[in-house]
């Protein structure tokens, strides 16, 4: 049963093909060229704030906690926790399990100038599956925590 395609179906096929080529091209270009510079600083943010809670300085091999996270006193703990021996930063995320907010552990590597979310609670633990990043922003929406990189030299801005 080979029915003749209607005008609308032809338009549909054309539209889908065009979108596929255009958006596919944009994706490939973006993947190849965006966020490629060498990172000098990685900033860790929480919530909608644009003041980084922790800055990881890849040039001077330092981790700077800028201010304490605003955490309800019932949690009996001051965040961020910076563990210099394990190279980890622990923050309190927004994702709750049985009404308790869960921690997010971020690991940094001075040598590789990279950052990775190694432990967190979110649907399917999707944030820690983002893997190691040396330039791409790591964004954990369910926990409202993000890591953005500052690059020196050739900078690519969107």
């Amino acid at each position: 049963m080979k029915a003749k395609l209607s005008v609308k179906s032809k338009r549909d096929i054309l539209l889908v093909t065009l979108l596929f080529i255009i958006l596919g091209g944009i994706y490939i270009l973006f993947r190849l060229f965006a966020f490629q510079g060498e990172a000098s600083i990685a900033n860790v943010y929480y919530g909608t704030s644009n003041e980084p809670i922790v800055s990881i300085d890849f040039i001077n091999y330092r981790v700077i906690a800028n201010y304490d996270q605003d955490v309800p006193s019932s949690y009996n703990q001051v965040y961020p926790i910076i563990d210099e021996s394990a190279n980890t930063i622990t923050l309190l995320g927004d994702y709750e399990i049985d009404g308790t907010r869960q921690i997010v552990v971020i690991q940094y590597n001075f040598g590789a100038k990279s950052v990775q979310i190694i432990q967190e609670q979110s649907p399917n633990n999707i944030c820690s599956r983002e893997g190691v990043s040396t330039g791409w922003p790591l964004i954990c929406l369910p926990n409202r925590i993000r890591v953005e990189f500052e690059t020196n030299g050739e900078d690519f801005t969107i």
Partner: protein
Amino acid sequence: MMHSAKLRKMTLLANFLAIAIVLNIIESAIPIIPVPGAKLGFANIVTLIILYVYSFKDSVIITLLRVLLVAILSGKLLGVTFYMSLSGAVFATLAMGFFKQLNYFGFVGVSTIGSVFHAIGQIAAGIFVIGSTAVIAYLPIMLFLSIPAGALTGIIAQRFYTIWRSWHNEIS
């Protein structure tokens, strides 16, 4: 006769809402998409079908109810995923309503456009939730994945609509 048509519509819409909720919950359990909190929007199948079977108004109501009920059922009302779902659903429904009215594309075209807007809506909500445009880094992959998802949604909805039409003509 009028009465039974109304009753049938109500029953169908209730069933559609249930299907949409299940689709939505199944979808959030499958991590096909590498963006935390984002979905491909397979529940849009129902939005699209109602748009063609009944009206824009009905599809808006069912879609909003679906988003709200899924959030309540998952116990995360007013959470990050709720805002992203809501924004994506509103964008997709408005876009599909507009392009259906335009009557230029068929099911697959309307559905694909809806899917693209669904991705844009979710990213837009993500920007607000996190206060940073860094989320835009995920837009290209989301847009790219939304095309096959949208096309597939459209094909399924069209298939349903064809069957529904013949069934509907038989009973009325």
